[in-house]
């Protein structure tokens, strides 16, 4: 995505021009953490160490990180089947996530949810969700709650281009506009719904669906963390100050397969070219490399080394923690279904 289109209303929201140098370093570190965690998940999945399917966010890190930079623990996010990035960007604990994916009692969901359902409600992470589009309505509900609370909490809802074809998008655009909910819609347009190119299943521009409701809307280069940060700054500020919902469409690209067993299940079936994937891993596109290049140019080489080391240590520690964890307790399946309190 070379161009960044921001609606006039977004510009008017009074943004700072971008993250400060210190903030950019933080954004970089967070993106790198997501990247390195997922590279490790990719390898461990290939090695047969992880029980379920893993859907990786590699290549899309700038979206979650750029948006969540504006959110605190008391703000909410809803996420997707591709939720590790959202979880970590919103401040979820690496160890607890890793242990969850390893199906351990120490997991953030005690091994009951797995990769597709990582959630940390104490951090406002209402959960990754295996149902495409489901997070939209959940986010609207959380945003309604915070609106009633009246204390400026904001909800961000991450969803894909594929999810944008679920009717619940239009329903929540309508309702959040009417009720002026403090909600930021973040569409991660990574050009695929599973193995189907978006253009085959998505008519028009997704952002136009929000514009039809008169909603402030931005289309940004989702691989440019600064651009995402900027658009989110406006949207979050608007929501926080009672200005209602906004919509951000972040154009990005999914570098890994839809999920890690993809090559196996497709057994030779192809839906994209290797050259296309390769292009998105270059320094001018890959969000982590791009940010790194910017930071390097500003002379931060030493800091970057330290960050890289810190992140790798964190990942190693998390994997060790997960591997050493206790297997999940099967009895939880029955005991956790209900809070047994009524009557």
């Amino acid at each position: 995505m070379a161009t960044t289109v921001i609606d006039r209303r977004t510009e008017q929201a009074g943004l700072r021009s971008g993250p400060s140098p210190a903030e950019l370093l933080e954004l970089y570190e967070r993106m790198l953490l997501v990247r390195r965690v997922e590279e490790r998940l990719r390898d461990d999945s290939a090695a047969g160490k992880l029980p379920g399917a893993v859907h990786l966010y590699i290549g899309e890190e700038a979206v979650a990180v750029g948006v969540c930079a504006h959110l605190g623990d008391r703000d909410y996010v809803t996420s997707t089947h591709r939720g590790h990035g959202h979880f970590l960007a919103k401040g979820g604990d690496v160890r607890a996530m890793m242990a969850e994916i390893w199906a351990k009692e120490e997991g953030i969901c005690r091994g009951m949810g797995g990769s597709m359902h990582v959630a940390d409600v104490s951090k406002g992470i209402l959960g990754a969700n295996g149902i495409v589009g489901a997070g939209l309505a959940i986010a609207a509900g959380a945003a309604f709650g915070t609106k009633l609370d009246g204390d400026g909490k904001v909800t961000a809802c991450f969803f894909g281009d594929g999810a944008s074809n679920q009717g619940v998008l239009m329903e929540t655009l309508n309702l959040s506009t009417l009720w002026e909910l403090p909600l930021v819609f973040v569409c991660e347009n990574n050009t695929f719904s599973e193995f189907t190119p978006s253009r085959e299943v998505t008519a028009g521009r997704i952002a136009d669906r929000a514009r039809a409701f008169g909603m402030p809307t931005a289309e940004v280069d989702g691989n440019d963390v600064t651009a995402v940060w900027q658009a989110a700054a406006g949207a979050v500020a608007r929501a926080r100050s009672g200005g209602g919902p906004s919509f951000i469409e972040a154009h990005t690209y999914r570098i890994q397969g839809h999920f890690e067993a993809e090559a196996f299940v497709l057994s030779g079936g192809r839906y994209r070219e290797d050259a296309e994937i390769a292009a998105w891993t270059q320094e001018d596109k890959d969000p982590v490399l791009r940010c790194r290049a910017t930071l390097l140019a500003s002379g931060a080489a030493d800091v970057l080394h330290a960050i890289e080391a810190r992140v790798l240590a964190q990942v190693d520690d998390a994997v060790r923690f997960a591997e050493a964890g206790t297997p999940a307790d099967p009895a939880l399946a029955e005991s956790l279904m209900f809070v047994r309190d009524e009557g």
Partner: protein
Amino acid sequence: MVERRRLIQAVNDALFEEMERDPKVVVYGEDVELSITGDMRGLHEHFGHDRIRNTPICEATLTGMAVGLASAGYHVVVHMMFSNFFYTGMDAIGNQMAKLRLMTGGQVELPITIIAGYGGGSANAAQHSDSAYPVLMNLGGLNVLTPSTPADAKGLLKTAIRGRNPSFFLEASGRGGEVGDVPDGEHLVPFGRAAVRREGGDATVLAIGRMVKPALAAADALAEQGVGVEVIDPRTLVPFDEASLLASVEKTGHLVVVDEARECCGAASQIAAIVAEKAFHALAGPIRRITTPNVAMPYAPNAERHVIPGEERIVAAVLSLVGRAHRATA
């Protein structure tokens, strides 16, 4: 002290009391402000737009929103008019409400109460007459409430709203006008405790929701023939009071389950299966299910009457069991 209340008033009372008690109770739904069924009447004037609110028609979002709003600390009440509209909002019911607590390792509580009418008998035709609770019962994580009296309606609804799990509160369509005694003051009915509506020693009739009335009428008719029928109203289907039912069957040796929901995988099936497993040795004869057959509700009133269980079918079933069919009906 008790008070005479119509069922719909009892529901309305419960909502007033719980909204008054807890500012975190919030109600929404299509046309709840003017309240066409009457259960929400007066709430909007009293509690205002933040506490009770009309929504657009978008059931998928209404059920999904309940999950988010509950996660944000609210006790959510959603009015869905007719239980057929559960299907329209089914994703969040089946894939979120029923599962999220487990999926998050117990992190979330979902104090959600969904209210809807159910059942036939008003010529509303197939798309407004389902008794859609068996579908809910199979989903695992949902309480299912089927009050048959104003007192239970009030007490169960209050328990549901205060509760910390998703609960479906089902109102028999067209029965809101029925009158009954409701205890004064704070009246809560616990989940999972059946009510024995009538005692009897010859056969147990378990009747659900709006079926309690024809079951009691059948019991009256059978009493005249010397057959003592124990009528059990489970009041909540999830959780279900197995102990009370099993005790009754131990005593009578016979069970008829009366349910307006369709037969196949219906509530009556579940209850029959429990007894066939856990009280088999007490049974002196087959378990009879009296249900709506596996059909969509027809429009014509005579056809509706043909498929919805009524007093005669219950009487006949009991008589077929207690072995006095010929003598009694001769």
